[in-house]
Each structure stands twice: as C-alpha cells, then as structure tokens.
C-alpha cells in the first residue's frame, strides 16, 4: 500500500489523492460504478496512470485487469498527462469532406505532434473527434471550450497563438 501511495504522490498532490478517494467512496457499491468513477477521477486528476487504476480497483474491489480493460477500451480515458489546452479537430464526415483532413495535417505540423499526443511543453494535447454536431460550421477545431468554425489551414497558426 505504501509503495502504491508513493507512486501516486510522485504525480499528484495529497489533495488530489483525497479527491480520488472521495470519488471512489461516493460510488462504491453502485452497480456499474466503474465508468462514472473513472470519468470523475479523470476530471480531478487529468489522466489515469496505472497507480490511479490500482487505487480504483482496490476501492471498488475489482480486478486491476478489468479497470485497465475499461480505461483502454473507451476513447475518453487517457493514461498519459494532458496539456494545458486541448485542441480537438473534428474529423466527422461533414468536416472531412469540407477539408478537415488538411486542417488536421496543418495542426500536426504546427504543433509538431501526432494525434493523441501532448506537446513537450505540455501546452497542447491534440486529438481528433468524430463529430461535434457543429456540421454547419465545418470544418471545426475546438480548443478547450472555444469552437472555431469554417477554419482555414492558413489561419491555424493565428488561432493557436491565441492560447498560452
């Protein structure tokens, strides 16, 4: 247990760990608790490395393999730390046919990372999503909560520079 705690403390503060324990406690015993617990845990901690999964497995009395299986199955969960800003490109069909692919390539080039990665300075996490339902504004890039519609490749640099 102590060794596990040390693993956790390396990445997270004791307040964050207490929050994690609170989340586990809140849902303990509910049927189907695992996914809500992981969703809330990720909201509190930003990502779900193996020590966090161990804690969740222990708390909910589930095998670690089951927790790991669920974390790696769903696209929402991530095991690597995230950047300060999340940059999502929509690659739903509507955005795709209206030039989303080009925007994606430009973003990858500007950020210097591939989809699902985080820049070295942990400023941006870059990912693609299937559809944000803003098809009328295609192609769409969402940075944090801001939706940028009808994006042009030439404007990417300018858009990214708004975030620091």
């Amino acid at each position, binding site marked *: 247990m102590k060794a596990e705690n040390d693993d956790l403390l390396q990445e997270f503060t004791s307040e964050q760990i207490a929050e994690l324990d609170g989340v586990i406690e809140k849902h303990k015993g509910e049927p189907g608790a695992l996914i809500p617990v992981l969703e809330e845990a990720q909201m509190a901690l930003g990502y779900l490395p193996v020590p966090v999964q161990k804690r969740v497995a222990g708390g909910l009395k589930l095998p670690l393999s089951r927790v790991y299986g669920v974390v790696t199955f769903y*696209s929402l969960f991530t095991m690597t730390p995230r950047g300060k800003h999340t940059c999502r490109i929509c690659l739903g069909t509507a955005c795709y046919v209206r030039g989303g692919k080009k925007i994606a390539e430009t973003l990858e080039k500007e950020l210097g990372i591939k989809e699902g990665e985080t820049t070295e300075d942990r400023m941006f996490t870059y990912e693609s999503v299937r559809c944000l339902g803003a098809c*009328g504004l295609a192609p769409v890039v969402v940075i944090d909560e801001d939706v940028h519609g009808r994006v042009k490749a030439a404007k990417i640099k300018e858009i990214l520079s708004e975030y620091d």
Partner: protein
Amino acid sequence: MKRMGENGYVKQSFVQDTETLRLSSVNELKELRSILFETLDENKPRLVICAGTACHASGSNGIIRIVKKYILEKRLADKVALRITGCHGFCEMGPFILTEPQQAFYVQVGLGDVPRIVEALLSDKYVEDLLYRDPATGEKYYSRDDIPFFKHQQRSILGLNEKIDPIRIYDYIAQGGYSVLEEVFSKQNADWIVQQVKRSGLRGRGGAGFPTGLKWEMLAKQSGDQGKFLVCNADEGDPGAYMDRSVLEGNPHSIIEGMIIGAYGTRATEGIVYVRNEYPLAVKHLKIALKQAQELGLLGDNILGTGFSFDIKIVIGAGAFVCGEETALIRSIEGKSGEPRQRPPFPVQKGVDGKPTVINNVETWANIPLIFKSGADKFATVGTENNTGTKIFSLVGKIKNTGLVEVPMGITVKEIVYDIGGGASGKAELKAVQTGGPSGGCIPANMFDVSVDYESLAEVGSIMGSGGMIVMDENTCMVDIARYFMNFLKNESCGKCFACRKGTQRMYEILDDISNGKGTLEHLDLLKELAEVVKDTTMCGLGQTASNPVLSTLRYFTDEYIEHIEKKHCPAGVCKALITYSINENCVGCQACIRVCPEGAITGEKKQRHVIDAAKCIKCGACRSVCKVEAVDVV
C-alpha cells in the same frame, strides 16, 4: 400551503410559489395546463433565439446577452419577450433571431443588429437587410415558413423545439406536453398502449427499423418480478449526424414523456438514458428536465397518484462507437468494456443486469407522444405504408443549406437535396449522397430518385441508419471516402471478432495503397472478398455492416478506383500522392498564395504569373483556398 389534492391547490401554489408544486392527480395536471395556457400570450411580440450547440458556436450567447440588456435598459419587458430554445435545424445560418408572431427570420445576426431587430418587431416592421435571402436567386423572405429550407419539411418533432425553452417544464406543458399521460392513466390499459404503437407502424429510428410496438409487446410479456428496463439510446456515434442531440438538447421532456408512456405500457420499472460524453449540453438539459419532472410528480413513486412508479437515470458513455450496438450498450451501462455479445438471448429477454430490457433510439422516443396526440391511425397516414411518420436527417457536406431536416418517409433523395438543401454548395456537380454513417453506403447522383425508406435504401446498397445524410460533389474522392470510413471502423472495432478486427484493418491498408498509387487491379477482387468475409463472419451490427463503405463505392464508382490504379490519377484531386499543384494563366500575380504557403514553395513577382516548386510543395492546398481567380490547378 394547502393540503394536496384540495381544490385550488394547483392555482394557489402556482401563483404563490411554484417551487412547492407537486401534482398528485391527473386532474391537477389538467388544471396546471389550463392555468399555464391562460398565461401563454401568443400574440406578444417575441424574439426566439437558438442556443443549441451549433448556434452557440457561432455566437448566439452574445446575441442573447445583448437582447436581455437592451430589453432591460429600454424597459421593454412588458412589450417584448424572449425565448431561448434548442436547435431549429438551419445551422448554416446561425446565429439567428426568429420573431413571433411575425415569423421574420434574421440570419447570421451580429451583436450590433439587436436594437434594430427589437425596434422593428415592436412597430411590426422588418429589418430588410438581415432577412434571409436565397443565396442562388437573391430572393428575400419575410416569413420563415416560406423559406424553401423550411417550406418543404414536415417538422412534427423539430417544430416543437422553437416553441419551448428546454429548461422550463412549464413551456412544455403549456404546449400540450405530458397531456398524453392524462389519457394513458385514465384508460388504465397497458395493452392498449402497446397496440396503439403497433398500429402506428412506428419503426425504430436508430437504423435497423425494427417495429417499435412489436418490441414493446415482447417486453410486456416478460415477467416483471425482477424489474424491467427501458433504455433511451442517445449514443449518437455516426460522424456527421446530430439529430438525436438536437432533440435531447431542445426538447428533453418529449423523451421523458415517451418513456413514461412506454413504461406504463410494458410495465417497465426503471429507465436509463445512455448519452454520449461529447454532448455536454444535452446532458445538462436532460438532468434539469429529469429533476423538474421528478419534483412535479411526473416521475418517481406513485406518479400523479396513480400508484404507478417509474424513474429515469442518466448514464454517460465514455466514447466508443460500438456502444450504439444494443448488447455493447448494455455492457457499458453495467460498467464493463462495451463489447457486443452473441444474441440470443435478446436484450428483451436478458438485458441490463440480466433483466428484460427494451432499447429505443432518441427519435423513436420523441415520436411516442406524437402517436398518442394525433392518434395511431392518423400518425400512420404520414409517410408510406410500411414506413410511417417523419424522419429527421442531418443534411451536411457539400450542400448549400446545411442543417437538420425533418421529412415524411418516402420522400426522394432529390427532394431533400435540391428542394430543401438547395443543391451543391460550390460550383462542382453533386456526385453522391452517403446515408447511414460508417455502416451505410453511397447513393450516386443518377439514383437520387430513390425513395427514402428502409427498404428502398437497402435495395440500392445503403441503409437508413440513424439519419446522417452527407452530400458529396466532384471534389470528393470516393476511394478516399471509403478509406476514411474504413479508418474510422478499424479504430472503432472492439476487436472481439477476428474477421472485423483484422478485416477492417486489411481493407484500410488496401484502400490506403490505392490512394497512394500503389494499388493493383487484383486489389479490387481482394477487397470484395474481404468485404464479404467480414460481413458473413462477424457477430454484431458494426461488423456486419463494416464492409458497406467499400462495397457501395465499388458498386457505383469502380471507374474511380480503376483510374487511381491504372492511371495513378485521382479525378477529384484529393489523394495527395496522385496530384500535383500548378498555377495556370488565370494568375494575376497578387502574391496571396505566396504569403500563405507554409513551405515557401511559390515564387513570382507582383503582376507576374507565379510558379509552384513541386519539390517543395506539400500539397496542403492553402494556395488554392486563398486564390480569388481560380489560378491554382490540381491534377
């Protein structure tokens, strides 16, 4: 506070303190509705503004803020009202303001336009320059209902969105919401409900088109000792489709009402709405709606004093396309990885936690109150014989009028694309419409006369699906589209069945090769063979339909494949490895392309024809997108 059930209780608590109001009989619901109806001043000038996801993204919140401020500052609250609603469907034109009772439709409104609009409404005039104009003819429309996009629709479900503020249950009740419960509870006949749904001919709007009444009948027959579940499937995973989100966001109470009716008819005990994590606004509105319905006594124990109990909870998905499949969705609700399982047992026998479960899609649930309001027979007169009612499509892609359209079943693709959608958005000719999402298929332009119903679409090799309708033109490469869908499907395959896991990957690799100019004619036979094998040997709906993008593009666009393979040429100018950019004699030497080129690949003096260095060019297309004289060629 007066004792529950006593005469005048509803009126008193409504006037004094609405918070405490809890309805304990059907009559009290009727009373509340008549009070609300009296307060409903439909002739009062009103601004209606959409705050759905797409309009929100184009800035409707700022507009709403300014409108509120203006009304407050000018002390106009007595004269003009504001209603904030969910999606109206015409997302291309957002943010917009609709006025009542005028029905003036102001599009792409800016913050500074607000005062003019309010003042015009107050004096029953129009702000001419902001009215919607047909982009092709320039014709101006004074009434929203005359605009072709709206005129050719039949908006039974979507039409309610503009009448209701989704976070106000009283708005819904005043518009006749929850009135079906009055009839349902007074008849006290569960079987009657199921029979009505069967009579209406309603088929599941999630894609497969299974008759809803039949599903309910099977659930009603199951023993309810352990409890039974009703699930609303709001895991709308098809990229390019968002009708379910709009209904959830814009009219969550219609789903709740539908589920209460369903529960009464099938004697289900618990309800679940399984909604995508990517839809935060829908979750928010649904949570508010559930709380309001519970507080008012429409959900929970002993609903309206009838002794009937039913409640609904929300389960938020964690992002997996396959979870739209019934058995995968059930596993996800149970907190497991969303892998489908073999059927039988069907969910109606063994569903959530092993209990009998019926899963219906959002739009299906939204149809239920409509069936009972109009009567099953009347509902069945809309559409065609075996395809009754309306269907919402999300019309997107290379089309002028992007948005959500609701049409009677049996309409042709042509009517949707041209009469409602206004045709191609650019100069290029339309080539195909893709329906049904990644599991669907393409309908080529020469078959646009096909009737939009479950059977006809299946005949031409596509599917109805949940309602995505993506329009493609000559600049869309069909090999690339097949490759795009296959990439999506290989990523979303859960991996349980070998044929799907490996098959989608191999099909993707072959398509990738073809689009990179490395394809051979043998590849086409191999693709077909793989597609058939995946179709025949996988377990769930995702796997069985995963081949559709390949099969349908191969069926109608073989020539395009062959051109990629034999001539190493992409006719649409999309597949990078097969195209080169060059500048033609139209060039006026404005240097716009030089400024945007990220690689410095373009050179040329002012007023001289520019040149692209093919060795440096990364084919990003930035030059083409800024060129005003169409001087950039792609071959």
